[in-house]
C-alpha cells in the first residue's frame, strides 16, 4: 500500500512533467482513435457508396458475360431464377438490368458509357441513384426515351435536364444504332468515375432498341445485411454466375485490407512516439531521484518493490490520461460522425475514389477497448526500461548523487 502512496504522490512532485506525459497519452489515444474512425468512416463511405449506387450485395450474370460484356450473354433460365430468389428470406429486394456498352454524344463531344436498362421502381429498392438527383426526375416523367446521367458527364457533354443526347450502341444483331434520348434527371454520386461513365434508361426502351426483350444481363440483389451475401450466394442454385460484392469488386476488399493495415501502422507509430515520450520522462524522473532511490535500496527496499513503484507511477499517469483520451475521442468521433468533416478542398480526389467530400467518422465500440488496452500495454512496457535503469543504480553511489 505504501508503494501506491509513494508512487501516487511522486507523480505530483513535478506537476508540469506529469501533465505533459498525460497530455501526450491523451493526444496519443485521441489521434489514434480519431484517425482510425476517419479511415473506417472513409472506407465505409466508399463501400456503401459503391453498394448503394450500383454494386449491391450480390450480382448474377451469365457465366461468360463479364469476359467481354457481350450483349448476347443474357441470364439463363430467368424465370426459374426469379422464383428461387423470391423464396430466400435474407434477400431484401432484387432488380434486373440490361447492360450495354455504348457512346454518349452531343455537339460538344462524346464519351464511352455503360448504359443500364433498369426498372426504375425496382431499382429504387436496390440503389440510391434516385435519391442523388441534383436536378430533374427519375425516369417516370418523360414517356419516350428518358435518360438519367451523372453530373460530371452532363458537364462534359454540356447537358441539362430536357437536353438531348445521342446514344450509340449495337443491337442484338450487332448493328450499330444511334438513338436520341432526353435527359430527365442528373445525379451526383460519391464517385466521379461512376458519374462520368454510367447512364440509366428504362428497361423497355433499351430492350426494344437492342432487340433483347424479355432478356436481362444482370440481377442485382440487396440482402437484409451485407454480411448475408455469402450465405445467400450459397443458397442460389443456377447455371449463372453468382458473385458477392467482394468478388465483383475485389479492389474494394483489398482497399479495406490495406486501410486496416495502414491504421495499425499509423497506430504503431503513434504508440512508439508515446513510448519514447514516457521512457524519456521517466528516465528524467529517475535520474533526478537517484539519491532517493539509492537511499531506498540502502535501507532495505527490494529491487522488485522499486521496480514496481516506478512502473506504478507510469500506470497512474496512464490511468488518469486514458479515460480523458477515450472520452475526448468518443465525443469527437460522435460529433464528426453526425456532422462530418468537410474536405471540400480535396473533394476532387476523394470523389475520384468514390468518397464524398464530407467524411463521417465511425468507430466500432470494441476499438475503443482495444486501443485503450494497447496504450496501457505500451505505457507499462515503456516504463520497464527506466525502471530497469533504476535497478542498475549502485546504492552507495546513488545515495551521494545530487
Amino acid at each position, binding site marked *: 500500500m*505504501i508503494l501506491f*502512496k*509513494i508512487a501516487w*504522490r*511522486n507523480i*505530483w*512532485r513535478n506537476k508540469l512533467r506529469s501533465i505533459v506525459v498525460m497530455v501526450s497519452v491523451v493526444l496519443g489515444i485521441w489521434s489514434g482513435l480519431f484517425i482510425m474512425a476517419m479511415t473506417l468512416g472513409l472506407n465505409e463511405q466508399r463501400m456503401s457508396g459503391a453498394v448503394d449506387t450500383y454494386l449491391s450485395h450480390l450480382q448474377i450474370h451469365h457465366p461468360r458475360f463479364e469476359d467481354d460484356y457481350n450483349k448476347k450473354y443474357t441470364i439463363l433460365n430467368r424465370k426459374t431464377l426469379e422464383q428461387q430468389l423470391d423464396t430466400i428470406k435474407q434477400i431484401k429486394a432484387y432488380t434486373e438490368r440490361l447492360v450495354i456498352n455504348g457512346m454518349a454524344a452531343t455537339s460538344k463531344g462524346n464519351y464511352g458509357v455503360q448504359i443500364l436498362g433498369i426498372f426504375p421502381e425496382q431499382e429504387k429498392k436496390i440503389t440510391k441513384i434516385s435519391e442523388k438527383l441534383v436536378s430533374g426526375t427519375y425516369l417516370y416523367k418523360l414517356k419516350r426515351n428518358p435518360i438519367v446521367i451523372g453530373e460530371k458527364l452532363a458537364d462534359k457533354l454540356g447537358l441539362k435536364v430536357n437536353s438531348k443526347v445521342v446514344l450509340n450502341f449495337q443491337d442484338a444483331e450487332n448493328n450499330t444504332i444511334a438513338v436520341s434520348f432526353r435527359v430527365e434527371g442528373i445525379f451526383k454520386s460519391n464517385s466521379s468515375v461512376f458519374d462520368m461513365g454510367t447512364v440509366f434508361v428504362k428497361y423497355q426502351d433499351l430492350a426494344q432498341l437492342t432487340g433483347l426483350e424479355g432478356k436481362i444481363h444482370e440481377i442485382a440483389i440487396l440482402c437484409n445485411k451485407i454480411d448475408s451475401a455469402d450465405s445467400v450466394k450459397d443458397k442460389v442454385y443456377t447455371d449463372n454466375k453468382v458473385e458477392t460484392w467482394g468478388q465483383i469488386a475485389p479492389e474494394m476488399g483489398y482497399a479495406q485490407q490495406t486501410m486496416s493495415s495502414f491504421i495499425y501502422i499509423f497506430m504503431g507509430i503513434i504508440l512508439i512516439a508515446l513510448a519514447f515520450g514516457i521512457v524519456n520522462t521517466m528516465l528524467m524522473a529517475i535520474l533526478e531521484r537517484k*539519491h*532517493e532511490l*539509492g*537511499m*531506498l*535500496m*540502502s*535501507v*532495505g*527496499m*527490494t*529491487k522488485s*518493490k522499486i521496480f514496481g513503484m516506478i512502473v506504478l507511477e507510469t500506470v497512474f499517469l496512464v490511468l488518469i490520461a486514458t479515460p480523458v483520451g477515450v472520452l475526448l475521442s468518443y465525443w469527437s468521433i460522435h460529433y464528426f460522425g453526425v456532422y462530418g468533416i468537410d474536405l471540400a478542398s480535396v473533394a476532387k480526389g476523394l470523389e475520384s475514389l468514390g468518397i464524398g467530400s464530407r467524411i463521417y467518422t465511425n468507430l466500432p465500440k470494441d476499438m475503443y477497448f482495444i486501443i485503450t488496452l494497447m496504450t496501457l500495454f505500451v505505457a507499462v512496457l515503456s516504463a520497464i526500461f527506466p525502471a530497469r535503469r533504476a535497478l542498475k543504480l*549502485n*546504492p*552507495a553511489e546513488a*545515495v*551521494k548523487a545530487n
Partner: protein
Amino acid sequence: MKVIQTKNIFKIYNEGKGNEVHAVNNVSLEIEKGEFTAIVGPSGSGKTTLLNIIGGLDTPTSGNVLIENTETASLKENEMINFRLHNIGFVFQSYNLIPVLNAKENVGFIMLLQNIPEKERTERVTSLLKAVGLENQMEKRPNQMSGGQQQRVAVARALASKPKFVLADEPTANLDSKSTTDLLDIMENLNNEEGITFVFSTHDQRVIDRAHRIITLEDGKIIKDEKIK
C-alpha cells in the same frame, strides 16, 4: 559482544590497470555493542568506502566483514538487502528522506517494509519521534522542516527497524552548529540509555569531540585507533 568485525579488508579500484587506487587498505577492526565510534580522516582517506563496506552497500575486493555472526560478503544481493533492512540503520549526509512522505510516514516506512503490524508501528514511530524531539512535527513533510529536523527524522528512521547498529556518513556535514549539537545530544542519549551502537564517518571536530572511540584513517589504512572514554 562484537557487533562488527572486519578482517583484512581491501577495496581496490582499477585493479591491475596500472592506476590502482587502494581506497581501503588492509583494514581490520572490531566494534563492540554500544560503542559510539567516529571514523575520521581527511577527504579521500576511505571513511565512506569503509562505512559502505560495513553496511553492505559496497563489496570489498578482499577480506571479510562479520556482522555479529553473519559474513555479509557471502550473502546474495536480495539477502543483503533483507539483511540491511533488519540489521543496519543508515543516516546519510543529505538526510535522504522520502520527500512525498511526512515525518511519521518516513519513520514508519522501514517498519512497513519489515511487515510490522500497524499498531506496533504507530507506537514505535511516536516514541522514536518523541526521542528525537519531533513529536510536534510528525505530520510535516521534509520540505517543511529544517535540515536539523530532517536529520533527526533520519535518525529516528534509522532506529525504526531496531538495527544492530547505526551507520552515519557525515551526519552533521550539512547542519549548523545548534542543529549539530542537538543531533549529537540525541544520538549520545540513545547510545547511553538504550545502548544503540553508532558508527560515524566524519571530519567534523564537534562530532569527534563527542565520540567514545576514534578510528583515524589515512590512505585507506587505520593509522590510529583510540578509545576516549
